[in-house]
């Protein structure tokens, strides 16, 4: 990962003091966020992607995920993906596209174009911050729990499958809970689970920057298993990091909202 060059993105937000306000019109949010007013900037000349802070302060997930980790993970890694993406897209036809559109175009049926990594990683990290919350963990409720029970047998079985996917994603990557409508031929990519029934929840894992948007799945939850996500806090102990994530960090509220939006 190249070090972030003198990052001069002017963000109206200081380090994550307040919940983000959906400022960037170009980062079309994939889900409805409750209790947040959206200020869409009109007549944007360039569709510059913004680095949004996590919806909590950088130390809010201590001791499970340290402030130091956030300073690097959000402040350096995520920032670099955003900065470098903007540098790559300025003045090109990608400039006018939303982040999701850039991801799909540059995925290019698996023959990745140069901006894919930065675009997908920018999206993945924002989605990841929003997948966690202070005092997270516990169990989901309502329709989400019903679907989990239906599609995995039990919440425990889901947790096991998710943790296994996260632990066995070799090298860098992500593990996901997704909502999957039955569209076997997704055109842009090879659907990894083409034979599953309609409209169900599935756990998948992906390498490096790839995310389930390219398979036309609706992501509901993710965990970053690149080593930079856990090395400062857990060193090589990825399974401990994954357990901590499940028990203390997952925002089931966010997952439920995303499911609602995906089914709509």
């Amino acid at each position, binding site marked *: 990962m190249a070090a972030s060059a003198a990052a001069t993105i002017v963000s109206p937000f200081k380090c994550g003091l307040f919940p983000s306000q959906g400022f960037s019109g170009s980062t079309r949010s994939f889900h409805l966020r409750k209790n947040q007013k959206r200020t869409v900037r009109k007549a944007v000349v360039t569709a510059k992607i913004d680095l949004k802070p996590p919806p909590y302060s950088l130390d809010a997930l201590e001791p499970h995920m340290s402030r130091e980790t956030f300073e690097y993970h959000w402040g350096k890694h995520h920032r670099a993906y955003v900065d470098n993406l903007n540098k790559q897209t300025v003045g090109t036809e990608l400039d006018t596209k939303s982040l999701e559109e850039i991801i799909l175009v540059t995925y290019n049926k698996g023959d990745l174009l140069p901006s894919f990594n930065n675009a997908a990683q920018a999206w993945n990290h924002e989605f990841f911050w929003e997948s966690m919350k202070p005092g997270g963990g516990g169990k989901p409720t309502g329709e989400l729990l019903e679907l989990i029970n239906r599609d995995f047998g039990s919440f425990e079985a889901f947790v096991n499958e998710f943790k296994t996917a996260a632990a066995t994603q070799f090298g860098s990557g992500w593990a996901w809970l997704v909502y999957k409508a039955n569209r076997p031929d997704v055109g842009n990519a090879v659907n990894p689970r083409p034979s599953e029934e309609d409209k169900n929840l599935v756990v998948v894992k992906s390498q490096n920057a790839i995310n389930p948007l390219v398979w036309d799945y609706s992501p509901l939850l993710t965990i970053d298993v690149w080593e930079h996500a856990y090395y400062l806090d857990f060193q*090589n102990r990825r399974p401990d990091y994954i357990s901590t994530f499940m028990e203390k960090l997952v925002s089931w509220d966010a997952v439920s909202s995303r499911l609602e939006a995906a089914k709509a």
Partner: protein
Amino acid sequence: MALRTLVSRKTLRTSSLGLRGLQTFSLPDLPYDYGALEPAISGEIMQLHHQKHHQTYVTNFNKAIEQLDGAASKGDASTIVKLQSAIKFNGGGHVNHSIFWKNLAPVREGGGEPPKGSLGWAIDNHFGSLDALVQKINAEGAALQGSGWVWLGVDKELKHLVVETTANQDPLVTKGPNLVPLLGIDVWEHAYYLQYKNVRPDYLKNIWKVINWKYAGEVYEKECP
């Protein structure tokens, strides 16, 4: 510089399949102390890298080989195939890291000293200068997305040097059956994160101070006598 590659005292495993002559792999000892490569690579990193990461590859490689042996003797073709990724990941991890420890040396044992002899000459001939080679390796190492390795290798048929990258724990030979690794630099984040954080280029800049060109030269001379 003798490298003990016998079953180390750190590895207490005895092969339960010794009767069938199944080779068990073990973690090689480092020929230097964990702290001996400082300040280029911290002792903390060296210890975790060797005792945890490499050891895990060895452990899981042995497990996979055991399972492979079982499947092969039962004629279970699909299990044999299913095990291939575990063998590549973990076996590759063991192979690559075993080379890596030999690619490094403390300064007082020659770490950082430029290559001499035929390898030095071949580098100048092929890349223009050692510095040009270093810049190329560093550029490719920095640009590698995700986890992997950057290599200086020699094509033992064509007798020329190559710079290549491999993903995850793929050994160099996956890029060409005639490629022999002379020098590999691990650019998985675990190799540098505690010390260099996200700044992989700084790790790449500093590692040259402890690169053991003597070993690379010996391998080169064996392939290109």
